[in-house]
């Protein structure tokens, strides 16, 4: 077992984990933050996307020990109490989700994109979520939602 410390949504956790445990397992099973979804477990679908040190990562491909000492944001860390994050609000307003299984990962990829590039072109938005599969929406309303979020967040 390995001792690790990681900060998730601003809260510090100290955990003892087996060396093969992945970050998605830590987040879901040890911390009980089930908002992060596990789809394929192989880094192909993007459902488990979280933000680690400012970058969107597939948490199924990150070993828990690699996350030692890192700052991590999951979907649970976005809203401010009852007030949704502008990206979440845009997904609500523009119907940027259907079954909702890809949604947490999709929103985290969108956040990583907008944090770096607050005024992305449509091409950049499409590229920014190219690692996140969505089988329900055909992406159209997701792209619309991210565009609207970028607009609403302008200057903030």
């Amino acid at each position, binding site marked *: 077992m390995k001792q690790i410390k990681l900060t998730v949504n601003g809260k510090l956790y100290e955990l003892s984990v087996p060396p093969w445990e992945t970050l998605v397992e830590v987040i*879901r099973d040890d911390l009980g*933050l*089930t*908002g*992060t*979804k*596990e*789809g*394929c*477990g*192989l880094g*192909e*679908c993007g*459902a488990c996307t979280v933000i680690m040190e400012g970058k969107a990562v597939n948490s199924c491909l990150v070993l828990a020990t690699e996350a030692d000492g890192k700052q991590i944001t*999951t*979907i*649970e860390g*976005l*809203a401010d109490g009852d007030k*949704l994050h502008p990206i*979440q*609000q845009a*997904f*609500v*307003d*523009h*119907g940027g*989700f*259907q*079954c*909702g*299984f*890809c*949604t*947490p990962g999709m*929103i985290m990829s969108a956040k990583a994109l907008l944090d770096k590039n607050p005024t992305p072109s449509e091409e950049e*938005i*499409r*590229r920014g*979520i*190219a690692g*996140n*599969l*969505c*089988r*329900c*929406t*055909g*992406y*159209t*309303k*997701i*792209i619309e939602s991210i565009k609207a979020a970028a607009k609403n967040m302008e200057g903030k």
Partner: protein
Amino acid sequence: MSEFSVIGKRMPRVDAREKVTGEAKYAADYSLPGMLWCKLLRSPYPHARILNIDTSKAEKLAGVKAVITGKDFGGWTWGWMPATRDEPPLAVDKVRYMAEAVAGIAAIDEDTAEEACELVKVNYEELPGVFDPEAAMKEGAPKVHDYVKNNISVEYHWNFGDVEKAFAESYIVREDSFRTARATHGYLEPPAILAYYDPTGYITVWAAKQSPYFHYRHLAACFKLPLSKIRVIQPFIGGGFGGTKNDSLAGDFCAVLLSKMTGKPVKYVESMEEELTTSRRRHNLIVYSKMGVKKDGALTAIQHRVIADGGGYTAIGPLSLYLAGFATTLPYKLPNFKYDGYRVFTNNPIGAAMRGHGITHSRFAAEIQMEMIAEELGIDPVEMRMRNAIDNPKPGTIYETINKVSLKTCGMKEAIQKVTEDPVWRDRGKMPRKEGNISWGVGLSATSYLGGARQMGHQSCAAIVRVCEDGTVNLITGATDCGQGSDTVLCMIAAEELGVKLGDITIKRVDSAYTPVDPGSYGSRVTILAGQATQKAAGEAKKQLLEAAAKTWQVKPEDVEIKDGEVFVKSDPAKSMPFSRLARIACYSGTGAVILGTGYSSYGVEPLDLNTGIGNGGTSYSFTAQSARVGVDTETGKITVTDFTIASDCGRLLSPITAEGQIEGGSVQGLGQTLYEDFMMDRGKTLNPTFLDYKMPLAMDVPNIKLIDIETNDPDGPFGAKEASEGSIVSSPPAIVSALHDAVGVWFKELPVTPEKVVKALKEKVRRHT
């Protein structure tokens, strides 16, 4: 001003907040104290006799609590119809497809359960397999099941009119064969279940099921318990699209039996590799199509001979094969139609339902073949479609096809007209045809799909509307929102009918201990059937409220109106009160009354006639016309789709955001199965069981999608609604293939149209012309 307060408004979905915050819990998100994990051992052979299974080593592994094999289910089997119950929860005497489950383990954690699977020793006698459905039909082919002849799992032979005479009298008759891909649903949530067999004899499961009442009946039958002791609690569902999540799976039965044996809750979550090797995917079909046409382009006859690869078991196959036939008489006037359909057992994974079920194959074949004939005759493709499309029946009249499919509304011609007036089609001549290696083309399709699927013996579909004393409302149905947005649509129907705000309605997900039984989410039936039930239930609750208001104001109930959360006397609007006040008055009236409205659907109860193909498969029918613009790199074969314009007659649009999302999503799923998606199989083995190798569209691949709403008001649907979820997965493939022909002059008759096929076809074309 619209006559409606809620219907037709662009309102956010009712499940939005839970889904964007990660609060929505799916089956795999549930856990119970003391829970065990289940894993399955799967067969390494596609066809083999099981000689012996030794579980002793696995049982001895520390942390293993129970091990089961097929025999532990006592010979129970299940299937879609009584005559086709051919599938055991775990294989008993032989395995019929690769990765069929043969043993189940319950252990203290997932890793231990997996390790124990490797310790189960199975002695197999490998049998010759059969993987091509046409080879499987031949005399002497390996037998997958003993109870049928020549591996024919289901067959239908229908004959309407006189096709032979019609062909003889036709100006042109074409014969072609078309093939569709081995495509799968591709939802991101793998099947999962948390099961608890209470020692007092109750089963409770939290399972990812889009039709939970199938599962409810399966569990009662398998475990020989009354239905009242089966509790299926519905989590949020991470996508369905038919097939797998409509049915029960080996992992479900094993989790329940292992829970019964251990007295502990048992959780099972399928891996994506297991899902992609065993999913109850779309049947891949061969359609031999013969079509006759008069000199003026009028269709005279279609004859279809269809071969469906059924895989190892029957599952929902009888319905798949029916659907591949009955709707071929839509959306064009067709005086003669013959159908010979065969669903054939092979040692491939099971063929079952997927969005656009059955119809997507035969419509693809017929639509492309009709355009090929138009080309031969020199008739414009729009003119060809307009000449044959069924007219919108005048209100109060019914159009009946040769096989007695009846339409009360049909927006086909209007949809074709609107799509061809849109710039993608209208201005195609002004756009470049060739840029470097890229050849551009624009194509068209006109298709139909059923809504409100008819049932086979389980028609019950009800809703309960309970008005609370504070004026809020619980809507209780047996319907399942597996992502398509039906919870929102049902809440909108209830709000409109009651006269309250959408936010005042809370919908409960299925809990079979409390919610009324419902067939499930398939065949685009929820909005139409559960929607009608909801409308009726809300209407009944409203009647009770109006009576309470009338008593208070000393007027007649019909003089009282409820709208936008306000109650008032029509002739004297000064007499008014908020809905919440009326709710309190009604609930506190001293009569002991509870304001409870119930309603059930009257649609879809006429049984399907599978053997004759006569009659309706649906309650009503949607009509979709679509254009597509594509660019083909003639060097590499790479295809880029830049535009879709889709005009859909979905009846009245109840929730525009929801319906648009369905049409967009369906069209992109259709794009995937036209261009990329296909399981590569080698003697029963799936060679691409990952999302890296089974390619689905990404955000980069998606065209600009423009939607056009063709509004009809169908008498058979709540507020005039028809289906919106499946039409565009039927219209996309022919639109894209028609565009490819426009771009490179080749008719592609086999899906998916991969770059290799494009390059090969272009080389062939050059060879033929030199």
